[in-house]
Protein backbone atom coordinates (compact mmCIF):
# COMPACT_ATOMS: atom_id res chain seq x y z
CA UNK A 1 0.00 0.00 0.00
CA UNK A 2 1.37 3.38 -0.98
CA UNK A 3 2.02 6.00 1.63
CA UNK A 4 5.04 7.28 -0.25
CA UNK A 5 4.86 11.06 -0.25
CA UNK A 6 6.32 11.20 -3.75
CA UNK A 7 3.36 9.30 -5.20
CA UNK A 8 0.74 11.22 -3.20
CA UNK A 9 2.16 14.63 -4.04
CA UNK A 10 0.68 14.59 -7.58
CA UNK A 11 -2.83 14.54 -6.08
CA UNK A 12 -2.09 17.48 -3.80
CA UNK A 13 -0.39 19.43 -6.61
CA UNK A 14 -3.23 18.69 -9.05
CA UNK A 15 -5.84 19.84 -6.51
CA UNK A 16 -3.84 23.00 -5.85
CA UNK A 17 -3.56 23.77 -9.59
CA UNK A 18 -7.23 23.08 -10.37
CA UNK A 19 -8.46 25.16 -7.42
CA UNK A 20 -6.18 27.99 -8.54
CA UNK A 21 -7.15 27.91 -12.21
CA UNK A 22 -10.89 27.25 -11.83
CA UNK A 23 -11.68 29.03 -8.56
CA UNK A 24 -8.77 31.46 -8.08
CA UNK A 25 -8.17 29.90 -4.67
CA UNK A 26 -5.15 28.67 -2.74
CA UNK A 27 -5.38 25.48 -0.69
CA UNK A 28 -3.54 24.34 2.42
CA UNK A 29 -3.29 21.04 4.30
CA UNK A 30 -5.10 20.43 7.60
CA UNK A 31 -4.36 17.84 10.28
CA UNK A 32 -7.99 16.73 10.54
CA UNK A 33 -11.49 18.09 10.23
CA UNK A 34 -14.53 17.08 12.25
CA UNK A 35 -16.90 18.73 9.78
CA UNK A 36 -16.09 16.04 7.27
CA UNK A 37 -17.49 13.44 9.64
CA UNK A 38 -20.74 15.20 10.46
CA UNK A 39 -21.97 17.10 7.42
CA UNK A 40 -23.89 15.81 4.41
CA UNK A 41 -21.41 15.50 1.57
CA UNK A 42 -20.68 14.72 -2.05
CA UNK A 43 -18.39 11.73 -2.37
CA UNK A 44 -16.59 11.14 -5.67
CA UNK A 45 -14.79 7.83 -6.06
CA UNK A 46 -12.27 7.47 -8.86
CA UNK A 47 -10.58 4.14 -9.53
CA UNK A 48 -7.01 3.99 -10.85
CA UNK A 49 -5.71 1.10 -12.94
CA UNK A 50 -2.22 0.41 -14.22
CA UNK A 51 1.15 0.60 -12.47
CA UNK A 52 -0.68 2.01 -9.45
CA UNK A 53 -4.16 0.74 -8.72
CA UNK A 54 -6.83 1.46 -6.15
CA UNK A 55 -9.14 4.38 -5.44
CA UNK A 56 -9.08 8.04 -4.63
CA UNK A 57 -12.20 9.26 -2.85
CA UNK A 58 -12.88 12.97 -2.80
CA UNK A 59 -15.16 14.08 0.01
CA UNK A 60 -16.72 17.52 -0.37
CA UNK A 61 -18.94 18.60 2.58
CA UNK A 62 -22.22 20.30 1.66
CA UNK A 63 -21.02 23.81 2.55
CA UNK A 64 -17.85 23.41 0.45
CA UNK A 65 -19.83 21.99 -2.47
CA UNK A 66 -22.37 24.82 -2.46
CA UNK A 67 -19.61 27.45 -2.24
CA UNK A 68 -17.75 25.90 -5.18
CA UNK A 69 -20.92 25.67 -7.27
CA UNK A 70 -21.80 29.28 -6.47
CA UNK A 71 -18.31 30.47 -7.42
CA UNK A 72 -18.37 28.60 -10.73
CA UNK A 73 -21.99 29.15 -11.77
CA UNK A 74 -22.65 32.57 -10.24
CA UNK A 75 -25.89 31.13 -8.84
CA UNK A 76 -27.06 30.38 -5.29
CA UNK A 77 -27.74 26.74 -4.48
CA UNK A 78 -29.21 25.62 -1.15
CA UNK A 79 -29.16 21.86 -1.47
CA UNK A 80 -26.98 19.12 -2.87
CA UNK A 81 -28.52 17.84 -6.08
CA UNK A 82 -27.64 16.10 -9.34
CA UNK A 83 -26.33 19.33 -10.89
CA UNK A 84 -24.02 20.30 -8.01
CA UNK A 85 -22.75 16.76 -7.37
CA UNK A 86 -22.03 16.30 -11.07
CA UNK A 87 -20.00 19.54 -11.14
CA UNK A 88 -17.90 18.28 -8.24
CA UNK A 89 -17.61 14.88 -9.92
CA UNK A 90 -16.12 16.54 -12.99
CA UNK A 91 -13.74 18.63 -10.86
CA UNK A 92 -12.50 15.47 -9.12
CA UNK A 93 -12.17 13.83 -12.54
CA UNK A 94 -10.05 16.75 -13.78
CA UNK A 95 -7.85 16.66 -10.64
CA UNK A 96 -7.35 12.90 -10.98
CA UNK A 97 -6.57 13.20 -14.71
CA UNK A 98 -3.92 15.83 -13.99
CA UNK A 99 -2.46 13.73 -11.15
CA UNK A 100 -2.22 10.70 -13.45
CA UNK A 101 -0.39 12.85 -16.03
CA UNK A 102 2.14 13.79 -13.31
CA UNK A 103 2.46 10.14 -12.27
CA UNK A 104 3.24 9.20 -15.89
CA UNK A 105 6.08 11.71 -15.82
CA UNK A 106 7.38 9.72 -12.83
CA UNK A 107 7.14 6.55 -15.00
CA UNK A 108 3.96 5.20 -13.39
CA UNK A 109 1.55 4.52 -16.24
CA UNK A 110 -2.02 4.67 -14.94
CA UNK A 111 -5.50 5.40 -16.17
CA UNK A 112 -8.65 6.50 -14.41
CA UNK A 113 -12.18 5.12 -14.52
CA UNK A 114 -15.28 7.37 -14.71
CA UNK A 115 -16.22 8.92 -11.34
CA UNK A 116 -18.82 7.30 -9.07
CA UNK A 117 -20.72 10.10 -7.39
CA UNK A 118 -22.89 9.78 -4.28
CA UNK A 119 -24.63 12.24 -1.98
CA UNK A 120 -24.99 11.23 1.65
CA UNK A 121 -23.48 11.24 5.11
CA UNK A 122 -21.06 8.37 4.75
CA UNK A 123 -17.32 8.77 4.73
CA UNK A 124 -14.58 6.62 3.32
CA UNK A 125 -13.62 3.76 5.68
CA UNK A 126 -10.38 4.27 7.53
CA UNK A 127 -8.52 0.98 7.56
CA UNK A 128 -4.95 2.07 8.16
CA UNK A 129 -3.93 1.20 4.63
CA UNK A 130 -4.88 4.53 3.12
CA UNK A 131 -3.91 8.15 3.49
CA UNK A 132 -6.39 10.94 4.23
CA UNK A 133 -5.40 14.34 2.95
CA UNK A 134 -7.46 17.10 4.60
CA UNK A 135 -7.48 20.35 2.66
CA UNK A 136 -8.73 23.86 3.32
CA UNK A 137 -9.48 26.82 1.08
CA UNK A 138 -11.76 29.86 1.24
CA UNK A 139 -14.69 27.75 0.00
CA UNK A 140 -14.29 25.34 2.93
CA UNK A 141 -12.73 22.00 3.69
CA UNK A 142 -12.45 18.76 1.75
CA UNK A 143 -10.69 15.41 2.06
CA UNK A 144 -8.93 13.11 -0.37
CA UNK A 145 -8.84 9.49 0.78
CA UNK A 146 -6.06 7.87 -1.21
CA UNK A 147 -5.75 4.09 -1.28
CA UNK A 148 -3.31 2.86 -3.93
CA UNK A 149 -1.14 -0.21 -4.44
CA UNK A 150 1.92 -0.47 -6.62
CA UNK A 151 1.81 -3.22 -9.26
CA UNK A 152 5.37 -3.01 -10.60
Amino acid at each position, binding site marked *: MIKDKLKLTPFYDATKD*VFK*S*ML*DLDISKLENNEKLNSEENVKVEIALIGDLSGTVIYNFPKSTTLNIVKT*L*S*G*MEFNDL*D*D*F*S*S*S*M*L*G*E*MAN*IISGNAVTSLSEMNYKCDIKPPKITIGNSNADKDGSSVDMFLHSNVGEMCEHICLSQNI
Partner: protein
Amino acid sequence: MMWKDKYKIGIPLVDKQHKELFDRVEKFVEALRKDEEWDAKLPEIKKTLAFMKNYVVEHFDDEEVYQRKIGYPLQKEHHLIHKDFTEYVMQCAASFEKEGYPEKGVQQFAGKLLAWLINHVVATDLKMSEFVKKDGDL
Protein backbone atom coordinates in the same frame (compact mmCIF):
# COMPACT_ATOMS: atom_id res chain seq x y z
CA MET B 1 -23.27 35.98 -14.25
CA MET B 2 -21.51 32.84 -15.34
CA TRP B 3 -19.01 34.47 -17.72
CA LYS B 4 -15.98 36.08 -16.07
CA ASP B 5 -13.42 38.36 -17.69
CA LYS B 6 -10.69 36.06 -16.39
CA TYR B 7 -11.88 33.50 -18.97
CA LYS B 8 -10.67 35.77 -21.80
CA ILE B 9 -7.61 34.26 -23.42
CA GLY B 10 -6.87 37.25 -25.67
CA ILE B 11 -7.85 35.74 -29.04
CA PRO B 12 -10.92 37.79 -30.13
CA LEU B 13 -12.78 35.12 -32.16
CA VAL B 14 -12.25 32.47 -29.48
CA ASP B 15 -13.21 34.83 -26.64
CA LYS B 16 -16.41 35.82 -28.48
CA GLN B 17 -17.41 32.19 -29.00
CA HIS B 18 -16.52 31.25 -25.42
CA LYS B 19 -18.72 34.06 -24.12
CA GLU B 20 -21.58 32.86 -26.33
CA LEU B 21 -21.12 29.31 -24.98
CA PHE B 22 -21.14 30.51 -21.36
CA ASP B 23 -24.23 32.66 -22.00
CA ARG B 24 -26.04 29.65 -23.46
CA VAL B 25 -24.97 27.36 -20.63
CA GLU B 26 -26.20 30.01 -18.18
CA LYS B 27 -29.60 30.09 -19.92
CA PHE B 28 -29.64 26.29 -19.88
CA VAL B 29 -28.93 26.12 -16.12
CA GLU B 30 -31.48 28.87 -15.44
CA ALA B 31 -34.06 26.88 -17.40
CA LEU B 32 -33.23 23.75 -15.39
CA ARG B 33 -33.62 25.60 -12.09
CA LYS B 34 -36.94 27.34 -12.85
CA ASP B 35 -39.53 26.79 -10.16
CA GLU B 36 -41.94 24.83 -12.34
CA GLU B 37 -42.73 21.27 -13.37
CA TRP B 38 -40.05 19.44 -15.37
CA ASP B 39 -42.34 19.07 -18.41
CA ALA B 40 -42.83 22.84 -18.56
CA LYS B 41 -39.07 23.35 -18.73
CA LEU B 42 -38.55 20.90 -21.57
CA PRO B 43 -39.11 23.22 -24.59
CA GLU B 44 -36.34 25.60 -23.42
CA ILE B 45 -34.07 22.69 -22.49
CA LYS B 46 -34.53 21.03 -25.90
CA LYS B 47 -33.91 24.34 -27.68
CA THR B 48 -30.70 25.04 -25.77
CA LEU B 49 -29.43 21.50 -26.18
CA ALA B 50 -30.01 21.65 -29.95
CA PHE B 51 -28.07 24.92 -30.10
CA MET B 52 -25.23 23.57 -27.91
CA LYS B 53 -24.84 20.48 -30.06
CA ASN B 54 -24.21 22.59 -33.16
CA TYR B 55 -22.32 25.43 -31.51
CA VAL B 56 -19.86 23.19 -29.66
CA VAL B 57 -18.89 21.57 -32.98
CA GLU B 58 -18.71 24.94 -34.78
CA HIS B 59 -16.58 26.49 -32.03
CA PHE B 60 -14.21 23.52 -31.79
CA ASP B 61 -13.80 23.53 -35.61
CA ASP B 62 -13.06 27.29 -35.68
CA GLU B 63 -10.57 26.92 -32.85
CA GLU B 64 -8.77 24.08 -34.63
CA VAL B 65 -8.64 26.00 -37.96
CA TYR B 66 -7.00 28.85 -36.02
CA GLN B 67 -4.56 26.43 -34.35
CA ARG B 68 -3.49 25.02 -37.72
CA LYS B 69 -3.07 28.56 -39.08
CA ILE B 70 -0.69 29.52 -36.28
CA GLY B 71 1.12 26.16 -36.28
CA TYR B 72 0.08 25.35 -32.72
CA PRO B 73 2.26 22.41 -31.61
CA LEU B 74 -0.42 20.91 -29.29
CA GLN B 75 -3.14 20.93 -31.97
CA LYS B 76 -3.43 17.13 -32.15
CA GLU B 77 -3.84 16.74 -28.37
CA HIS B 78 -6.32 19.61 -28.34
CA HIS B 79 -8.27 18.01 -31.18
CA LEU B 80 -8.55 14.72 -29.23
CA ILE B 81 -9.94 16.58 -26.20
CA HIS B 82 -12.51 18.30 -28.46
CA LYS B 83 -13.36 15.00 -30.15
CA ASP B 84 -13.95 13.19 -26.83
CA PHE B 85 -16.16 15.96 -25.50
CA THR B 86 -18.13 16.31 -28.74
CA GLU B 87 -18.83 12.56 -28.60
CA TYR B 88 -19.99 12.90 -24.99
CA VAL B 89 -22.36 15.78 -25.88
CA MET B 90 -23.74 13.91 -28.89
CA GLN B 91 -24.23 10.68 -26.92
CA CYS B 92 -26.05 12.53 -24.14
CA ALA B 93 -28.25 14.43 -26.60
CA ALA B 94 -29.15 11.17 -28.40
CA SER B 95 -29.92 9.31 -25.19
CA PHE B 96 -31.99 12.22 -23.80
CA GLU B 97 -34.05 12.25 -26.98
CA LYS B 98 -34.56 8.49 -26.78
CA GLU B 99 -35.37 8.45 -23.07
CA GLY B 100 -37.59 11.55 -23.00
CA TYR B 101 -35.15 13.96 -21.34
CA PRO B 102 -34.96 12.44 -17.82
CA GLU B 103 -34.44 15.15 -15.19
CA LYS B 104 -31.64 13.38 -13.33
CA GLY B 105 -29.57 12.78 -16.47
CA VAL B 106 -30.07 16.30 -17.83
CA GLN B 107 -29.11 17.88 -14.47
CA GLN B 108 -25.97 15.73 -14.30
CA PHE B 109 -25.10 16.63 -17.89
CA ALA B 110 -25.42 20.36 -17.14
CA GLY B 111 -23.19 20.14 -14.04
CA LYS B 112 -20.48 18.28 -15.90
CA LEU B 113 -20.77 20.56 -18.94
CA LEU B 114 -20.17 23.71 -16.89
CA ALA B 115 -17.19 22.32 -14.93
CA TRP B 116 -15.66 20.87 -18.12
CA LEU B 117 -16.10 24.13 -20.04
CA ILE B 118 -14.52 26.28 -17.32
CA ASN B 119 -11.54 23.96 -16.96
CA HIS B 120 -11.12 23.68 -20.73
CA VAL B 121 -10.99 27.47 -21.11
CA VAL B 122 -8.76 28.25 -18.10
CA ALA B 123 -6.36 25.34 -18.59
CA THR B 124 -6.33 23.88 -22.12
CA ASP B 125 -7.23 26.97 -24.19
CA LEU B 126 -4.96 29.15 -22.09
CA LYS B 127 -1.98 27.11 -23.30
CA MET B 128 -2.88 28.11 -26.86
CA SER B 129 -3.00 31.75 -25.82
CA GLU B 130 0.39 31.46 -24.11
CA PHE B 131 1.85 29.98 -27.30
CA VAL B 132 0.42 32.84 -29.39
CA LYS B 133 1.77 35.47 -26.97
CA LYS B 134 5.19 33.81 -26.97
CA ASP B 135 5.14 33.63 -30.75
CA GLY B 136 4.26 37.33 -30.96
CA ASP B 137 1.02 36.88 -32.92
CA LEU B 138 -1.23 38.41 -30.29
